[in-house]
């Protein structure tokens, strides 16, 4: 067992009639530090569910989730919220930006949430500065004050990526980040993620359909009906 992120015999069931619907059927997986891991598989295979469990957004029915040897299933709800805030960064297929806030505010939000959560001494101004830096780095310097509805899909996803990165997470989780983008903008996002992994050693777990791009970056695992079928 590595002592970074590891999943052991994770199952997830949804109650349904007499026999529960088994979405995950005992997934065991190791993610090494600095690794670029891609999960592929047909729609409905349980990829999102697995990612959600990995990122503490969802609770597994059974199994263990360990981070650096610590069992994340056994900690309080508040602590889980804290880990979601600064251990994991999430990027979704549908961007999921807050519509009432502009780009820079959306990026700042995890930093502001973290302020209250675990006594960070980061001031609002510091959070804003790093949010602006991140947005500048993904080429949205001119778009700080724009609301999500005023941005294109690619731009939105870049804002979402910045938001996932603002608290310098240990693991970046991406759920089909390019699924809603055209192939060109999708490739740009992939490129950004690859650069993060290569230059900063950012650990990446990504669900995608773009297998070709994934192969170039690192390890790929395939899921089928709630099980890992090939590594």
């Amino acid at each position, binding site marked *: 067992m590595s002592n970074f992120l590891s999943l052991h015999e994770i199952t997830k069931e949804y109650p349904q009639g007499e026999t529960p619907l088994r979405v995950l059927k005992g997934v065991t997986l190791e993610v090494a530090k600095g690794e670029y891991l891609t999960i592929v598989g047909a729609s409905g295979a349980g990829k999102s569910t697995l990612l*959600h469990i990995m*990122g503490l*957004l*969802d609770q597994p029915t059974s199994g263990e989730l360990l981070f650096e040897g610590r069992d994340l299933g056994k900690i309080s*709800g*508040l602590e889980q*919220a*804290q*880990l*979601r*805030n*600064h251990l994991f960064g*999430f990027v*979704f297929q549908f961007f*999921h*930006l*807050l*519509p*009432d*806030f502009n780009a820079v505010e959306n990026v700042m*939000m*995890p930093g*502001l*949430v*973290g*302020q*209250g*959560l675990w006594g960070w001494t980061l001031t609002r101004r510091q959070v804003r500065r790093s949010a602006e830096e991140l947005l500048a780095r993904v080429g949205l310097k001119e778009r700080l004050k724009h609301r999500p509805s005023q941005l294109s899909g690619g731009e939105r996803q870049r804002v979402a990526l910045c*938001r996932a990165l603002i*608290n310098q997470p240990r693991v970046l989780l991406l759920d089909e980040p390019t699924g809603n983008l055209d192939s060109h903008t999708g490739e740009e996002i992939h490129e950004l993620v690859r650069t993060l992994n290569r230059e900063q050693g950012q650990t990446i777990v990504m669900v995608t359909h773009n297998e070709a791009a994934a192969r170039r970056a690192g390890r790929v695992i395939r899921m089928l009906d709630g099980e890992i079928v090939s590594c």
Partner: protein
Amino acid sequence: MYKLMVALRYMRRNWLNLVGVAAVAIGVLVLIVVLSVMKGFDEEFRARVRATLSDLIVENWYDEPFGNYEELMAQIEKIPHVTACAPRYEGLALLTLRKKLPDGTYGPGQQRRYGEFLGIDLPREVKATDFAEYVRAWRGRAAREELAALFSQGDIAIAAISKEHVAAELNSLRPEDLQIMDALPRERLTAWAKKEGLSLQSAFATAAATPVEWGEVPDSKLSPAFAGSELLVIGQDENGTQVSLGTGDQVVVFSATDNFANQTFRRCQVNGEFRSGMYDYDARNIYLPLADAQRFMSNEGKVTSINIRLDSFDNAPIVRATLLGILTPDELRRGLDALRSLGGGAAPKLKEIEAQLKLLSSSEVTWFATADYRAITVTRSLEYDIYGALETLHKTGVANPAAEEFQKLVLQREGSRVGRGSKLALRVSTWEDKRRPMLRAVMLERRIMGVILFFVMLVAGFLILSIVHTTVLSKIRDIGILKSIGGSVGGIMSIFLLNGLLMGAVGSALGTLGGMLITKNINAIQAVLEKMVGYSLFPQDIYYLDRIPVDQHPFWNTTVICLSAVVVSLLASAYPAWKASRLNAVEALRYE
């Protein structure tokens, strides 16, 4: 803090929040205005109801006139906290009003009334009660009318009268009299007084310092009297102007006793007017000299009550206890504490004493408050019980200073009882005891009004609940997002609680501001409204008030109202906030 930031952003984006703020503001405003006007009326009403009642009133327990009162009063005056006392002879009477005819005789009575005569010792009365306030204020009706007539004729008429004359008339007036005289423009009066080198201020000061006197009567068969202002009204003449008794007119007082064979009466000449503002008193009371009342009732040397003024009404319980020769509930408690600290007394007895004492100190026991004899009996038996128990302990050699003090106090209090050695049993009431039904009615009225008005607050609360609920429904996806970036259950809940809290707080602030503005300017607002609707909303002749009274110290009322508004808003948002915080993150994210 992101919670406040998010809450504020959501509020700004939804105009419904303004509706919530307005609802709270209206609720707070209505509560503040209505309660402060009611409190204003209450304070006014308390003063009116009290009128000439003194702090404590001593009567015969058997409601008979009692003698030897000079000696009793001498004893009472020695009691600490007593500043003055005055005897009274009061009784029911049939009153006949007789107006002087043009030929100088008195015809048969024009009107018959039932009422009450009050024989008072004037020099002592003015020290022990506020009698002077009410008599002097209205004594100068004739002078006031004369002045008003002069002033309404114009400056030439004023110049024609000597300033000494006006100054003399002014002496019988008080500032309140001038204020309510529509016919007498104050500016002109002030200007005139200035020109003549008269200071109105000093005229008023002289008026206040002039002692009340009975005034002259033509022969000894007549008594000088002050009659209630409403009592004096006979009716209207053919021109529709009010006819009332005035200087030189008479009221004949017939005794209303059960002495059938010997009905007595006394003719009184009305030398002045009494006006308290309470219709009941003003329509029934006639004041005459104590000696005359005693003689006419064939009860020379006797009175029906002694009226006591205290340095402060707060001292009424202790003075009353001293008068009756008993302990106050507080003092009894101290004795009980001494007994308990000695660990002594028969345990079951101790419990019984405890229960009785609790009953005594409870404000709900009206028979104690109303000076019922039972209260005295219970107190005496408690004194006896505690004293006895302490005595038993003392014999067994246990003693402490507190116990000795208690025993000393019991003996000393018994010794200080007023009227000791006579067969007289006293009833001692406070003025509140005397007027308890009315005071209770008013207090209850305000409480009930508060409860009813609180429903306005509740409605605002329901509105807030549905507004916050709508916000939560429209922000389900946001809630999922916030959870995915680390928002905790408490954090999500705080966002929506803040939403309600802010509505409550802003609404309270606006409502308080509006309420203050309205109560401060209520009389101006009333005037404007009256112009608009065209009739009097606040007829002065009904309330005897020249303005709408308001609570002068609204701090506590306002604080309580605002706090309850904020609490209601918070509670109203608690349910939707709780629901929001329980949302499952993944499902919320998937929500369309």
